[in-house]
């Protein structure tokens, strides 16, 4: 396959950045999208040019590190991660535009690499059950209906890649935040802290500069792990219930 790539290059956070065009003549349809970048980078390196920097690690679609905005969609045309996107999803001669995630809360570090530590800080605000190691009850002491466990699991599969933010016209992080709040609110172990959790995580989300939700649903439609929009509804319910009885009004 022949592919034309238009890639966002930006030396560092302070640089203005811009698109550069690259021609690839020998792309195999079996390559993953990132393997195509590997091949291009090998070429650039052997010419003494700076390779294109991009985040990636597990290449199995689970670590959430890869983050390319491809032809106007996070992770490209398929609902999957960039590392699991294969060149057979494109056609010979196609021009592909690749950008980093665009959001105020995800500043560009270099080329396609962005800083997503804002997500870590949201989790630090309460995305856990406050138990110390040891002294916990037997795992089978509290039965949990299979349906509830399965639903909690579905929310828990979020990989924290940030595609939801990149897809949203408001750069909202509601899907990411709601997935964690939902998972823990559904399980008996997480119910104890559900109110403070919802309040604190949402406050942190706002502080990081993520936008508001206007119910467009692009986040869920583009999520590589198919995190459902219902999570946002659940989060809103958690939030209002918490606020109604909150001591921090």
């Amino acid at each position, binding site marked *: 396959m022949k592919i034309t790539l238009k890639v966002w290059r930006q030396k560092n956070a302070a640089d203005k950045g811009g698109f550069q065009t690259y021609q690839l003549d020998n792309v195999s349809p079996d390559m993953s999208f990132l393997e195509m970048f590997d091949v291009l980078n*090998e070429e650039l*390196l052997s010419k003494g040019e*700076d390779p294109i920097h991009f985040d990636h690690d597990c290449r199995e679609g689970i670590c959430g590190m890869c983050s390319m905005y491809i032809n106007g969609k996070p992770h490209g045309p398929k609902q999957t991660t960039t590392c699991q996107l294969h060149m057979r999803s494109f056609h010979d001669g196609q021009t592909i535009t690749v950008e980093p995630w665009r959001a105020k809360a995800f500043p560009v570090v270099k080329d396609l690499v962005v800083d997503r530590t804002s997500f870590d800080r949201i*989790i630090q605000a309460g995305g*856990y059950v406050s138990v110390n190691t040891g002294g916990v009850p037997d795992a089978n002491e509290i039965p949990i209906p*299979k349906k509830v*466990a399965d639903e909690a699991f579905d929310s828990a599969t979020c990989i924290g890649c940030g595609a939801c933010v990149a897809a949203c016209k408001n750069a909202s992080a509601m899907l990411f935040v709601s997935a964690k709040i939902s998972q823990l609110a559904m399980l008996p172990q997480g119910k104890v802290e559900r109110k403070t959790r919802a309040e604190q995580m949402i406050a942190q989300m706002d502080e990081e500069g993520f936008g508001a939700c206007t119910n467009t649903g692009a986040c869920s439609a583009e999520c590589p792990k198919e995190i459902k929009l219902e999570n946002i509804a659940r989060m809103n319910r958690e939030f209002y219930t918490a606020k109604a009885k909150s001591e921090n009004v």
Partner: protein
Amino acid sequence: MNLDSKIPEGPLAEKWSKHKFNIKLVNPANKRKYDIIVVGTGLAGASAAASFGELGYNVKSFCFQDSPRRAHSIAAQGGINAAKNYQNDGDSVFRLFYDTIKGGDYRSREGNVYRLAEVSVNIIDQCVAQGVPFAREYGGLLANRSFGGAQVSRTFYARGQTGQQLLLGAYGALSRQIANGKVQMYSRHEMLDLVLVDGKARGIVTRNLITGQIESHSAHAVVLATGGYGNVFFLSTNAMGSNATAAWRAHKKGALMANPCFTQIHPTCIPVSGDHQSKLTLMSESLRNDGRVWVPKTVEDAEKIRKGEIRPTDLPEDKRDYYLEERYPSFGNLVPRDVASRNAKNVCDEGRGVNKTGLAVFLDFADAIKRDGEDTIRGKYGNLFDMYEQITGDNPYKTPMKIFPAVHYTMGGLWVDYNLMTNVDGLYSIGEANFSDHGANRLGASALMQGLADGYFVIPYTIGDYLAKMPYDKVPVTHEAFKAAEANVKEKIDKLLSINGSKTVDQFHKELGHIMWEYCGMSRNEEGLKKAKGMIRELRDQFWKDLRLVGTNDELNLSLEKANRVADFMELGELMVDDALHRDESCGGHFREESQTEEGEAKRKDDEFSFVSAWEYTGPEKPEVLHKEDLVFENVKLTQRSYK
């Protein structure tokens, strides 16, 4: 050097309880006077850092990824073992211990493995309390499945994403300590040297991967939870960034490297599709619960399938060879990984491989789908089947999967005693980075168990015993030992950047991978290993003469990061070959062609090799010195492993 494993005296089942009572404690008010560095945020590192923080220690946690949640434990699929006996099928701590020792082909320590089995039950309790959504039965209780090398169902799982769910649990606990101010998190930082003061580990030197800044961090103890070294082979199931640099540089500062030749080749991975391949993807071992492994009985049929003249589903039952079920009737498709991998290699060597390259066997779900229905199979393995289809373009509900073995896990690692401390005072190693629990072969669903056992339930106790004897004084990072280590790191980076040759890091890494896979992979022999040693040395010389990097140290520079790692792989690769050459027996994943039974199974030589090989670095280009720790078995009888 005297290698003291410090296994406590007394009956096996009482060792750990007694030890916990005998070790020294640090008063809660004094814990805040001690600083601990933890490198790596996978299951072992995150759980250890969180637990230290909860106890009151000051912790600095480091990872090279952009967030601690991305460590490669996240990719573990199948499950985690625990001797809960919830299924009432005869499981017990002793049985898990026994299966693990036997599965490791009797090359691990009884004391460590028993403790692992003992604390396994606490792990599941802990994770459930954290809100980890394990699979459940309709009655609301936890579900289990079985895994290779075991005849009971003791594996807990969260669909095919168990590692992710466990890691997110540990990441949550870690995040809570970060919020509490007990853990300081340094993401996108890579450890490049260990700092010793008066023979004790007192800190590390790191590179900030964004700015290139070389920084020193001081502490009272250093814990390495940096994972395995499977990426020596270039192609493996490890993440692209997984590396051995922290462990290897600690090794060069005096920590012994144990059993480096013990690597695990996982039988169920997606086969290689071309030269562009950057990594291999694992298909969870749990698939062998329902999938049947086969190849055609004849080379002719295999050829027809390779050429696409017939479809695998067209081949009648009597022309298929379900070779695992035939050879090992009692374990069938659930034989341990090393056995399954070697058998796949053998049938492909005979010319019965089934994809274009001839390096693949079938894993067939047709019978399971007929028996249980497609929905049940989708419920169990849906995400794995989807992943397979995305990568290969084949639909495994309609046609059998193609699989082939790939490098997956390294049982070898830094030598540690019962307290998980290396031979360097104050330097600990946990999880895959150490060598302690899996012997010559790891059983499925045991890596997650070990990582969390070490991090949640072992090191929080044992590190106190060391710290209790340490003065509170801190070593300033202006100390000459830190300055020397920083200078050493900078010199190495400058050297790499100034070679200005013609070949890229990846080219060198691929060549190293080819050598290792060819001569130090699934089967090894003296001649090949000797040849490999020469080839690696030559490649290493070339690397330092002909490497080409672009850019500077003072920026995000992915190829410089990689060059640092590959430089260490080149040295570690040679040690793996030395170790494989020295161990003139077959055991577990280490198969020496010279030492096999008449049926072609691995043949141990217990009289000569019942020991841990621990290698000591003696200087650049000097041979490493071998130290032996004898393995003593008081509770199990050594037998030829049989899964027939």
